[in-house]
């Protein structure tokens, strides 16, 4: 154990324990396997549309683990996009719930069978309702940022999105509003640049790095390899530290893969791009933090778990038609879901599955 610790310290990250690394690995695998299960559900007719995270695990699992999780202004607010499952899983969400939303079941805790898969809304963890409208989260994020600026403390607002989304005016809105002189906002902005918006290559639509646009507003920023867990962790740690203490915005542009293409509309088939989990596993093996067999066991375990979860979800009902009239206006919510109540893969009570 001591030996392992020394090795990791060589990464220049004193808090980078073997436990943490293995936990991240488990979270990445958990994400990947639940997404794979979701894709299988589309194929088998147990769902209609899939969009999700494969390729963003190395960026988002480290992000999720560093979130200050909880309700209210002292904790972090999250304004996410549809490739953010690693974040909420790292925060402790249950994989089965992703499958419930995939199947549009009444038990779907995020939207009651209303929204697409991976569209979260978790009040107790400040995860704002996600919308399929690209980049609107960047205009909404300024609101929690304003509240947190006024409140003080160290809670921050985190907003993420894709590279294509930065062409929407909402991206500029977030840059303008978060840098008003004397009224800067504590917002960590993350753009996952997977080089595509559906079928459109980013390189055909903008020529300069996205990070330059943040710099134009005086926002400190990092351009990182988002397929590398270490770089991600470090940039996010730095960014969060800056935003928490300076109460000003920080921007991260992370290049990532899009391993199953855009969505089920484009087939959701695996494409030839770097797999961040395999890359991380090589690092783990190289550090001798785990054997191949141990890592394989993680995959197996999670795959089994997802298959079991699927069996449960399959038999659950759709919401009844009358349900359409519920929650148009504020009303007390049924207490059928408490995302933190069970020990879960990414839960803070669960130390990484070993």
């Amino acid at each position: 154990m001591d030996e392992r610790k020394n090795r990791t310290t060589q990464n220049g990250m004193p808090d980078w324990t073997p436990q943490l690394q293995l936990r991240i690995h488990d979270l990445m695998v958990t994400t990947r396997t639940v997404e794979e299960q979701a894709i299988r559900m589309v194929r088998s007719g147990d769902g209609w549309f899939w969009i999700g995270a494969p390729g963003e695990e190395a960026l988002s699992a480290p992000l999720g683990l560093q979130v200050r999780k909880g309700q209210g202004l002292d904790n972090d607010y999250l304004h996410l996009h549809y490739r953010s499952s690693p974040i909420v899983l790292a925060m402790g969400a249950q994989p089965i719930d992703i499958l419930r939303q995939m199947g549009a079941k009444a038990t779907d805790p995020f939207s009651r069978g209303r929204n697409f898969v991976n569209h979260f809304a978790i009040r107790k963890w400040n995860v704002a309702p996600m919308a399929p409208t690209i980049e609107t989260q960047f205009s909404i994020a300024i609101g929690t940022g304003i509240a947190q600026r006024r409140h003080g403390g160290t809670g921050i607002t985190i907003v993420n999105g894709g590279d294509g989304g930065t062409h929407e005016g909402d991206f500029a809105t977030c840059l303008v509003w978060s840098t008003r002189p004397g009224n800067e906002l504590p917002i960590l902005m993350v753009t996952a640049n997977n080089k595509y918006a559906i079928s459109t290559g980013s390189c055909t639509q903008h020529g300069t790095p996205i990070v330059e646009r943040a710099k134009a507003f005086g926002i400190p920023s990092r351009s990182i390899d988002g397929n590398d867990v270490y770089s991600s962790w470090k940039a996010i740690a730095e960014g969060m530290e800056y935003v928490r203490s300076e109460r000003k915005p920080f921007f991260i542009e992370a290049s990532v893969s899009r391993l199953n293409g855009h969505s089920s509309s484009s087939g959701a088939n695996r494409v030839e791009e770097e797999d961040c989990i395999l890359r991380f596993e090589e690092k783990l093996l190289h550090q001798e933090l785990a054997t191949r067999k141990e890592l394989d066991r993680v995959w197996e375990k999670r795959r089994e778990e997802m298959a079991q979860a699927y069996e449960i979800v399959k038999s659950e009902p759709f919401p009844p038609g009358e349900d359409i009239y519920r929650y148009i206006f504020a009303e007390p919510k049924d207490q059928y879901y408490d995302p933190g109540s069970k020990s879960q893969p990414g839960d803070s009570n669960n130390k990484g599955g070993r």
Partner: protein
Amino acid sequence: MATMAQAIRMALAYGEQHLGVTDIFGEDVGPPLGGVFTCTQGLQTAWNSPLDERGIVGAAIGLAIAGQRPVAEIQFCDYIFNTIDLLKLATNSTWSSGGEFNFPMVIKTTTGSGVHGSIYHSHSFDAIATHIPGWKIVYPSNAVDAYGLMIAALKDSNPVLYLEPKAMLRNKCAERIPGEPEDERALRDMIDAPLGDRKNWKPKWPEGLTDFTVPIGKAKLCRTGADATVVSYGRTLPLCLDAADALVKEGIHYDVLDLRTLMPYDWDAIAQSIKKTGRVLFVNEDTEITNFGEHLLRRTVDEFFYELRVRPRVLAGKHVPGVGMAPTLEDASVPQLPDVLREMRELATEPE
């Protein structure tokens, strides 16, 4: 005898002090101007935003998520049309999250014609707004209601769209808001910002202001008459009142309903009056194709087709791209007193 602008300002001040209002913001909403119609002068939590309506609506949604109580202004509803996706998110996010989140927020915006505002200061927004499910929509036609509806909006747990008929913001009310000083000059000295340098100015809010509330969803029967019913709101409401008063001299007696809340609207009040008169006219100034008055007419037909004595009617703005600058154009585009009078007379006198 406060003006509507003063009424709104006082309600917002009350809201800051007693109802947890945290942010009143938008373009030129904060000092020094306090709003292009003075509605937000002297307010403690008022601040100027960037010139960016999408940011304004987005920020309001985010503030509501963060447990704040924002009142965001779109300076003129003419400039709200690039934010309709966000207005939809404000309400469908409660629904799409299965009730996990709700959005206590007010969007206020000035609407309608009547100030020689030309194409881009004369738009109405009631047609499109009522088409977006989930919004509560209020539209006062006098200062007392303006106060009471704002208080109601500030207490609500849902997004409330507060439409201000800009032509009436400077109108004084015949009635007095509870707590309003007797002397209107005294009121002015207390709460109107002085001309010139305002840096050291602070308003003195009347001490007696209350949480006088006009409940959302309650229409007001302003005149009673058994011959016919007219339902309106905003700038066209006083036209209906004037016409009704004029028609009394002709022996025609109207129920005049000020709808006040467009969504959810007071169907009971409308239905009760229609049952009595069997004749109904809906008046507003938004353009007339796919118009909220047409919805009210459809509902009327749904429920009272066989009881109506004559054809129910809608009088609205002409289906033209804008209200032109020249007074001749404005008069021809949106209902004016002679139009309302003519329609009301015809409705009431049409033989069964």
